[in-house]
């Protein structure tokens, strides 16, 4: 149980720069997630914290201790690998006991601790099985037990659910959350699945091409993305390139196509912006303090309990998501339609490349 600080971590592999100066602060006892598309550097960050890779520049602190040059075996930051990395020539018991035996614990203590760890992951009675005799979910639990049994300062999980089927994934997700709460340990979790990240995390760091774009609670990240990348990575969203034409302090007027949106909030310097609107925040009925867009219906997609109406505004297609109601069911393509959006729900962000 420890807090982790990364200071300006840079990692180069030959010519390529995997991490471009990352600083993070993971608090004691929280479940912190690194989220991002593949190749964004999240696994590299994790491996650097685990001591399996060393940063080219920058420092890693566990509490006040500088662990940058400490080897993986001396760090106590235990990683659960994406492929579980269970040793096929050892039984479940031997796998879990491995770390304890390295620490030269007495035999009785080893047995007691292994039993505790296997109970924690609900695998009592599986001691003598071999990894190949276990299902994917069970292997996952063994890997977690193997990591927890040594009472790590920090538990690192690298895409732990990606090899499981959908149902098992949900089950293991809450299982990991339960164990983390029960033990109150600091967990660093890596995933590319934004839904998983939001469901499980206390805080999330969204990463993109070797940099951290935003750190915050799931709600902050989803509702108040700070960059175009974070906005578009977190779920389906409308991202519309636009231009700032008038400014009055934070109040700006933004134009795209022939539309002119007044009274939006933006404090950035660049005039090239994107307008970000979540589809579920678009109403088909008039609401207060809203702007109105008039266009025609292009497509209506039916998803069961909700419906997506795709409207065309000039050349621009905008998606609105709404509960399936009888009124909605009569909407047909080519009909004229009005989208109402509260000004508060419109985000103006500087355009990224």
């Amino acid at each position, binding site marked *: 149980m420890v807090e982790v600080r990364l200071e300006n971590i840079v990692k180069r592999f030959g010519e390529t720069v995997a991490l471009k100066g990352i600083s993070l602060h993971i608090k004691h006892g929280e479940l912190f997630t690194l989220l991002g598309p593949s190749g964004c550097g999240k696994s590299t960050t994790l491996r650097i914290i*685990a001591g*399996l890779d060393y940063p080219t520049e920058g420092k890693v602190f566990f509490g006040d201790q500088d662990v940058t*040059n400490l080897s993986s075996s*001396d760090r106590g930051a*235990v990683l659960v*690998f994406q*492929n579980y990395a269970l*040793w096929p*020539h050892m039984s479940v018991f031997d796998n879990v006991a*491995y770390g304890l035996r390295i620490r030269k614990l007495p035999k009785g203590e080893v047995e007691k601790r292994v039993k505790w760890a296997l109970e924690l992951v609900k695998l009592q009675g599986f001691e003598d099985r071999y990894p190949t005799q276990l299902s994917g979910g069970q292997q996952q639990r063994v890997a977690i037990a193997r990591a927890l049994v040594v009472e790590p300062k920090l538990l690192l999980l690298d895409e732990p659910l990606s090899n499981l089927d959908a149902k098992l994934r949900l089950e293991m997700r809450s299982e990991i959350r339960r164990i983390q709460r029960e033990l109150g340990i600091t967990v660093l979790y890596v995933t590319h699945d934004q839904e998983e990240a939001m469901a499980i995390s206390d805080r999330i760091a969204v990463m993109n091409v070797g940099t951290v774009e935003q750190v915050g609670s799931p709600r902050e990240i989803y509702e108040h993305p700070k960059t175009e990348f974070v906005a578009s990575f977190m779920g389906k969203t409308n991202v519309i390139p636009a231009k700032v034409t008038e400014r009055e302090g934070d109040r700006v007027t933004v134009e795209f196509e022939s539309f002119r949106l007044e009274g939006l909030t933006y404090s950035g310097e660049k005039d090239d912006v994107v307008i970000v609107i979540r589809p579920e925040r678009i109403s088909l009925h008039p609401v207060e303090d809203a702007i109105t867009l008039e266009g025609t219906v292009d497509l209506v997609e039916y998803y069961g309990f909700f419906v997506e109406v795709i409207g065309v505004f000039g050349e621009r297609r905008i998606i609105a998501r709404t509960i399936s109601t009888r009124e909605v069911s009569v909407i047909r393509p080519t009909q004229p339609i009005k989208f109402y959006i509260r000004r508060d729900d419109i985000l103006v962000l500087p355009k990224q490349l």
Partner: protein
Amino acid sequence: MKSNWSERLFGTPKFEPLVATSYLFPLLYLLFFLIIPVLAMLAIAFTYNGSLSLHWFREIFSFNSDYIKLPSTWSLFQSVKMPGTGETLYIIQGLDFGIVLNSIIVASVVTLLASFIGTIFAFLMARYTFPGKNLFRILLFIPLLVTPFVSAYVVQQIFSEYGIVSSILHALFGFRVRVDGLAGIALAQSITYYPIVYLNAYASFINIDPSLEEQAENLGSRGFHLFRTVTFPLALPGIAAGATLVFIFSLEDLAAPIVFHSNDLAKRIMSYQIFSKFLFGTGERSPLIAALAIVMLTLAIIAFLGIRKYVSLRQYAMLSKGGRWSPRVSKPRIGQALIIYLLLLPLLLFTITPQVGVVQLAFTEQHRIVTNVTDITASVTGVMYPTGSITNGTLVTPKGGWFFQGTVKGYSDSIGVINGSISGFFVGKVTVNNGEVKLTGDISYADFQGLASRYNGTIHTQMKGPITGTGELLSGGTVNLTSTRFKATMFNIPAGQVSKFSFNYVKQMILTPDVRRYIVNSLLYSTVAVILIVLLSITSSYATSRFKGALTPVLESIVILPMAVPGIVVAMGYFYFFHLVFPGTPLDPISPATFNPAYVLILAYSVRRLPFAARSVYAGLQQVHVSLEEASMNLGASRWKTVTGIVLPLISLNVFGGAMLSFVYAMSETSVGITLGSLNMAKAPITAFMKEVLLSAAGSINIAAALGVLLITVQIISIVLVNVITKQRYSFIGLS
């Protein structure tokens, strides 16, 4: 993280002694016992009269020298009259383009023939299912068994004038044929080495994603067009890799040239020239040997680098590998079935005859028919070689014998009166009287070498051995035996034979202390070499498969380099290098008082057979995911604990398989064993003894064959062990 030299060199951000050792131990080992010895030879080859010079290479590369020239005769075969019967004998021995070109031509012909045969069988086994396929599978396994010398000897016998092929031609067309010289070498090598292409080609055909061929078929390609445009190009890298190995193996092979050495043309090949100049020289041998070795090495390296480049450019055969597929097999159509049963089956049966012949030789006692022969008038006709001379009343001929022909009259217990002619090499005591050479005395059975057989009441023997005799020289001077007529009386001449199954030779092999010693030597050297090989292959494979330092590609290349360095080149390199650096020690081959071949042979075996085990261990390591090690280190284990506790148990089967493979090939190592190894016969390995048997008349080919059977047994046991224990297909030789 400023200790970046460690990361750059070894690929570990921090200096780890274990990882550094994994790099440096195999690197330094191969540097000292492969690279530097070969380079030392380079220095010698470029030195003449104490200064840097191209002298030796100028000697080799001057046109119309012994080394490069046009044949004096362009006829592919000579016809001679058989002595005694007067039948026509066609001798096919190849053309003489000089020593260097001969080697290249033989190696190229062998490569083409072996590739052709190997690819056909590989395609057949990979793509067709037919009744008797299992028989093919079993039979195809047999040519893989390595029996140095004796298998080439069997090929020589099959294609001798009294062999099966000649007999069939004689029965059909009335003439006889002997394949000898360079042609004989090429034939023997093709039969010996085609399995290398077969294994590589088979693996390639099996590894082609069927969907690639199915797509081509789907687009309208079929039959030979499909093979030519899709299947063959995809398999070509594998076939070419096998073919390259064959080229190198043929270039360096000594067994076939030694077996055919009684033919002058067979000696005109680089490997034999290096070998004989070494063997019949004394002290510091001529730098010409070093120069020839360099030429051979250059050829081998060019072939090797060429194929590495080519194969790395064409990795596409594995392009869409993912998941398992069942390979495409089909039933042959009528025409194809005819080819399989009428052409390929006989061809296959033919290619296993060396191994069958070796076993037969080892277990067949030639029971001699005792014949009391009196009054033999033997007249010498044809070429007598070598000639003898009488000095101080003693007639001496060099090693060998001479060809003579005579009439045998007598009777035997079992077949009654024999009336016919006897011809062949023969040995005996000779007395000279009044200018007339008389052969007397009991010619013991042991003096006669070779097979005797009966054709139409004619007994043919092939005998050779040294001749010595005493006599009075009345006329003075030298008697040249070339045209001498002589009268001989012989008693108890072995004049015929009945073959009988027997364990005698195997018994002799085990019970004769001399022979047993060779076996013990070989077992000892190979075992120690394999221990070294295991250490070398684990360290080198661990370093190259896990870390990406600057030394990684260097180590990768250097570990497979022994494949490209001909054995005779290693032998000569050691010869010069160890004399230079360790004079007067057990490592110095020129110091007969101190030299112990054991050390040199163990070093040579460990270097030459390393690639076999290294590939196997490397393949094993690639199947062990790195995360298994990282998980261990992450849980607090040290590198040493991780390697011994996690990595080694997981690759133990690969280590075992590779060790067995290296052991088998160390046991049958020829080039170094018969050169440096035979400098002290008390410490010589099996192959050195087999060479002695084939070079001189003193030993028995049957005991050599028994040793061949021993090697076959070792190989079969290894294969079975590897199969049972590792559940993996035993892959003999490959290159990738």
